[in-house]
C-alpha cells in the first residue's frame, strides 16, 4: 500500500489486467458475453467498477458488466457467477477477475460534518452561509478511515485482526508459530519469483515500469518479525504487521469459457472449475471460514484435502491459517461445530501455499480470490498435477472453497 501502484485507482488496475489479458490471448473482445469483476472498496468515482474496467479495457460497449462483492472472496465470486450464468445458458465467454486499490480507499467525513455541509450548500445569502459555517466544530473534521471501517465487522464489532486474535487464543496458536509461518511465506514467494512473474503483467505508469512484486522480502528474518509489536491487542496479542497479510493494490483478469467454446475458438485452457462452495460461520471467527466451506464442498464433490495435489488457503493472518489447519484435523471440532463424525482432513504443509501467500504477496481483497485460482492452475500445470483446492476466509463470517482441475 502506498507504493508503486498507489497512484492507480481500482478501475485503472483492473483495466490494465484486462488490457493484458486481451493482448495475451488475442481474443476478439466482441465475443465476450459479460464482464464480472469483484471489488470490495469500489472507487467513488467509478461506480460499478466492472463496467468502467470493461469499457476502458477495450471491450465493446454492447458487452454488459457487473461488479460483485463477497468481501475477500469477491474474486472467486466473479468466477463462480460466470459458471452459474454459463450453466443457466446466459453466455459462454466471460472475462472475470478482481481489483482493489487499498491505497485509494478514501478518508470520509463524519455524518455530523456531512449534514453541516449540506446546510452550507443550501444557504443562499451571505448571512445564511456564515451561520452555516459557524455551525462546524473541530470534531466534525476528524476523518473516518475508510479502510479501517471496511476491515471492521459491523455485526460483531471486531476488527479483522481482532478476529484473528480470537482464533489464536482459542486454538492456542503462538506468536512464534505465526512468525515462523510468515517467514516461510516470504521464503516460498522469493523462491517462486520467476514462476510468479508469468502471472504478472508489466504496469507502465507515468512514464515508468513496474514489472515486479514488491511484497516478498528476501531478507526477512525471524528476529525482525519478532521485534514487531502486536497491532490489535497491544499487551498480550500475537498478530503483527509481519504475520498478517500485506494491504496492497492489484488486479487480476481471467478468461473463462464453456468447454465447447474453448474448442470452437481454438484456445488452450489452463484447467477447469470442478466444484465450489461458500459457507457461513461466526463473524467473530471468520478466519475459520475455509473449514466450513471445504467441508461443504466435500458434500457436493466428495473431494477431501487428500485428493488435492495443491492447496491454497489465503493467508489473511498466519494465526487464522494455523487455526484452520488445526480445525481441519480436529475430530472434536468436526463433531461439535461441523456436526459430522470425521474431520475434513489434515492439510499437509508441503501442499499448502507452495509459492507463498498473502503475507508475502499481499492481499488486495477484491482481487485475491481470482489470483489464487490463477496461481494454482499454473502450478498444477508446472507439476503436471491434477487437482487444486483454493480456499479463503471471508470477512463477515464466510468461507469459500473451489476445486480446480488441470486438463
Amino acid at each position, binding site marked *: 500500500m502506498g507504493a508503486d501502484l498507489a497512484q492507480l485507482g481500482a478501475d485503472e488496475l483492473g*483495466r490494465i489486467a484486462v*488490457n*493484458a489479458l*486481451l*493482448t*495475451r*490471448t*488475442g*481474443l*476478439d473482445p466482441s465475443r465476450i458475453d459479460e464482464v464480472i469483476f469483484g471489488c470490495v472498496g469500489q472507487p467513488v468515482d467509478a461506480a460499478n467498477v466492472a463496467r468502467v474496467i470493461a469499457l*476502458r*479495457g*477495450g471491450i465493446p460497449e454492447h458487452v454488459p458488466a457487473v461488479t460483485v462483492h463477497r468481501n475477500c472472496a469477491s474474486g472467486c465470486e466473479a468466477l463462480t457467477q460466470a459458471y452459474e450464468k454459463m450453466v443457466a445458458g446466459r453466455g459462454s465467454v466471460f472475462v472475470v477477475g478482481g481489483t482493489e486499490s487499498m491505497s485509494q480507499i478514501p478518508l470520509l467525513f463524519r455524518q455530523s460534518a456531512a449534514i453541516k455541509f449540506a446546510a452550507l450548500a443550501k444557504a443562499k445569502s451571505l448571512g445564511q452561509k456564515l451561520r452555516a459555517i459557524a455551525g462546524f466544530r473541530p470534531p466534525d473534521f476528524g476523518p473516518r478511515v475508510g479502510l479501517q471501517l471496511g476491515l471492521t465487522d459491523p455485526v460483531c464489532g471486531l476488527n479483522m485482526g481482532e478476529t484473528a486474535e480470537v482464533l489464536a487464543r482459542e486454538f492456542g496458536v503462538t506468536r512464534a508459530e505465526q512468525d515462523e509461518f510468515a517467514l516461510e511465506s516470504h521464503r516460498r514467494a522469493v523462491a517462486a519469483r520467476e514462476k510468479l512473474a508469468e502471472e504478472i503483467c*508489466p504496469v*507502465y505508469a*507515468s*512514464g*515508468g*515500469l513496474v*514489472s515486479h512484486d514488491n511484497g516478498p522480502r528476501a531478507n526477512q528474518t525471524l528476529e525482525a518479525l519478532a521485534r514487531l509489536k502486536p497491532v490489535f491487542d497491544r499487551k498480550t496479542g500475537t498478530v503483527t504487521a509481519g504475520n498478517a497479510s500485506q494491504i496492497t493494490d492489484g488486479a487480476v483478469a481471467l478468461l473463462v469459457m464453456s468447454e465447447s467454446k474453448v474448442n470452437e475458438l481454438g484456445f488452450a485452457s489452463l484447467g477447469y472449475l470442478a466444484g465450489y462452495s461458500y459457507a457461513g460461520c461466526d463473524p467473530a471467527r471468520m478466519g475459520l471460514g475455509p473449514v466450513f466451506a471445504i467441508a461443504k464442498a466435500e458434500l457436493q464433490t466428495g473431494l477431501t484435502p487428500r485428493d488435492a495435489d495443491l492447496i491454497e488457503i489465503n493467508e489473511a493472518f498466519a494465526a487464522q491459517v494455523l487455526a484452520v489447519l488445526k480445525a481441519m484435523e480436529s475430530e472434536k471440532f468436526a463433531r461439535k461445530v461441523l456436526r459430522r463424525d470425521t474431520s475434513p482432513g489434515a492439510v499437509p504443509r508441503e501442499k499448502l501455499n507452495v509459492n507463498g501467500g498473502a503475507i508475502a504477496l499481499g492481499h488486495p481483497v477484491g482481487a485475491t480470490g481470482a489470483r489464487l485460482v490463477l496461481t494454482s492452475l499454473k502450478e498444477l500445470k508446472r507439476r503436471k498435477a491434477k487437482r487444486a483446492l483454493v480456499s479463503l476466509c471471508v470477512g463477515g463470517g464466510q468461507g469459500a472453497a473451489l476445486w480446480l482441475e488441470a486438463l
Partner: protein
Amino acid sequence: MRTEALASDEKRMNLGVVPPAGGPPLSSVAQEKRFTCVDRQITDEQVCILTFDRPNSSANVFDRETLHELDGHLDFIADSTELKGVVLTSAKNSIFIAGADLHALAGASADDLASLIELGQSVFSRVAALNIPTAAAIHGACVGGGFELCLACDSRVASPDRATKIGLPETQLGILPAWGGSTRLPRLIGLPRALDVILGGKTLAAKQALKYGMVDDLVPRERLVEFACRKILTQRSELRRRRHGFKHWATNNRLFAMALSLRIESRLLKKTRGHYPAVFKALEVVTRGLSRPPAESLALEREAMLELARTEECHNLIRIFFMQERARKRSYILGPTPAVAKPVDRTAVIGAGVMGAGIAQWLSSRGLPVILRDVNAEQVAKGMAGVAQLYQEGVKRHLVTKLEARAGLDHIFPSPAEAPLRNVDLIIEAAVEKMDLKKKIFQELGELAGPNTVLATNTSALSVSEIAASTKSPERVVGIHFFNPVHRMQLVEVVVARQASSGTVQRAVRFVQQIGKLPVVVKDSPGFLVNRILMPYLIEAGHLFEAGASVEDIDAAMLDFGMPMGPLRLLDEVGVDVAHHVAGELEVKFSDRMQTPRVLAQMLKAGLLGRKSERGFYLYNSKTPEVNSGLSLFQEKDWARNFPREELQKRMALLMVNEAARCLEEELVTEPSDVDFAMIMGTGFAPFRGGPLRHADSRGVEKVVGEMKRLVDSGGAYFAPCALLQRMADDGGRFYADKGHQ
C-alpha cells in the same frame, strides 16, 4: 407553420429522408422552383427562416447563383411588413456554409472576380442593413464567406458539436476575407483578436469561438433554430443597440491600430520573409479600414482581394488546398480490385521506438486499438512513456481533453512479448532500420497474422519489395511511411512493393485516409519520393559546408527560399545518424549524384548527432540553438567560401528540382502534382512556390536546365539535368498544362 414542427422537419432531412412534399405554407410554395439552394419558411410568430440546403451535395457553398437567390429572399423580406426577424441556418449534417466556391473563384477572370466580390459584399450588406433583427443558427463548418454572412447578422448562435468550426481561413489561401469579414470581425470582437483570426487564417472550435466573441451562445443542435427565433423575438432592443455599439473603443482606434500593426508587421516579416503577401495586405486592410466608414473599408477589401487573386502565391496556395481535398478522398485503384476496401478496426505496431510510439499514439487518438509490441518490457515502457508524453503535450496545448487523452492511452495494448495477431487488420512494423531484422519480423508476422491482415513497414530507406519477399504472402505487404513527428506531419507515403496486390494498396490508402492523414502512392524505389528528393539537397548542404560556406549562410539561403527550416538545421532534427544511414542507402543506387558528405561521418564519430545529443551543426543546450563553431574543423575545402546566398540557394533548389523530375520520369508517381504535393506536405517545401516542379514551371524549364548546365560546366557533374528536363527544355514543355488556376 410552427417552429417546433420545422425543427423536426430539419431533423428528418438530416437523416437523409426527403421532407414531405406540398407542406410549406405561405409564399414559399410558389417560389420553390426558382429557389433551389435556400429554402424559406415563416413561423407562426413571423420569423423568416432561410435554410441553406444545396441539392445533391453534402456542403453549402456560395456561388453567384446562391448569392442571387439569397438576394431574392432579401427582396421578399424587405417588402414584408409583417416579419419580426430572420434566422439563417443550414440543413446539412456537418457543414453550415463552407465559404465561397473555390472552384468558381479560381477559374474567374479579373472582371468576373470583381463582380463576384461586389455581389457578395452588397448582398451581405443588405443583410446587415435589414430593419428587423437577424440571427445565424450555426451547426457545422462555418468558414470564410459562410462566417462573413453570419458576421452581417445581429447575433450568432452555434452548436457545441465537434463539427462546428468557425473562422476565416482566407489568408491560408493567399487571399483575404473580402465579403465584409475584414471589416466586420474587428468591429465585433476587437482588433487584436480579429487580427489573430484573420492573419492566422484560423478556424476555431465552437467553445473557443464563444470565448473570442465570434458567437454569442452555444445551444444544442436540435434547439438552435428555436433558440435563435426566441432570441430575436425577446431581445430585439438589445440586438438593435448592439448594431450601433462602440464596444471596443480601447483597441479599435487609429493610434492603437497603428502601433499594433507596426509590431505585427515586423513579426510577420521575420516569419514569412515577405513571401506571403496576403497576410500583409490583410493587416493593412483591417487596420486602415477600422477607422473609416464600413463602405470605404469594404472598398479596401475589394481592391486588396483583386490584387492578391492575381498573384502566383495565391494560385499555388489554392492548388494545395485542392490537392489536400483530393488526397483525402482519392481512391487508388490498380487493376482489378475488390469493390470497397474494408476499413481497419484493429491495429498493431511492432517496435516502440520514437516512430513506433508516435504512430501508436496517432492511431490510438483516432480511436483505433493498437497493440504496441517490442522485445521486452523496458523497450515497451520507453514507448509507452513517449505516447503518454505526446498526450500530455496535447492536453497542455488544449488539443485534447484529459479524458480524451486517457481514452487514447487506454486504446494501447502494450505487449512485451510475442502476442497473437490473428484478429488484427493492419500491422505496422517500425523496428530498427536493419534489413535482416525486418526480414525476420515479417517472416514471423506472416505466420502470426490472420490471412487478411495487411503487413506494413514504416521503413524510410529499405526496399519494401525485398522485405515482402521474406513472407509467405508478399502480396499483402506494403510500405506505410510516416514522417517524424507523426502527430504533426500530415503526409504518409504508401509504398507499392513489386508483389503488392491492388487490394492491399487500396486498403492501405483507405487506412491512411481513415486516420486523417494524406496519402501519396509511390512505387518502391530507394528513398521513395520525399527522402529521395530531399537527400540530394541535404547532401549538397553538407558539401557546401565542407567547402567553406557558413552554417548561417546555408540555412538562411533556404529560409529565404521559403523552406520552413534550413537544411543543416533539418539534418540536426532528423539526426545525423539517421541522415547518414539514409544517404548511405541512396548512395548505393545513385552514386553518380549522391555522395554522402564526409562531414556526416565525422560528426557521427564525434557523437554530434544533432538535436538528440544536443550537439550537431547547432548547439541545443541553450534556449535558442546556436551555431556550433567547433565544426569549422571539418571544413576542409574552400571552394564555396565566398558563394553569395543566392548561389547557395540556387544550387540546393536545383538539385531538388532535378531529382523531382527524375521521380516523375521513373514513374514513381503518376502525376507532377503528386510530387509537388508530397514535397510540400512532407518537407514543408515553400508552399507559395507550389512544389519543386511547379517552381520549375514558373521559372521556366529552359532557364532551369540552363542553370544546371552552367553548374556542370563549372565542375559539378551531378547537376546534369535528367532526360525529362532536357527534353522539356528542348521542346519548350512544362510539367503542368495550366498556366493559371486549377
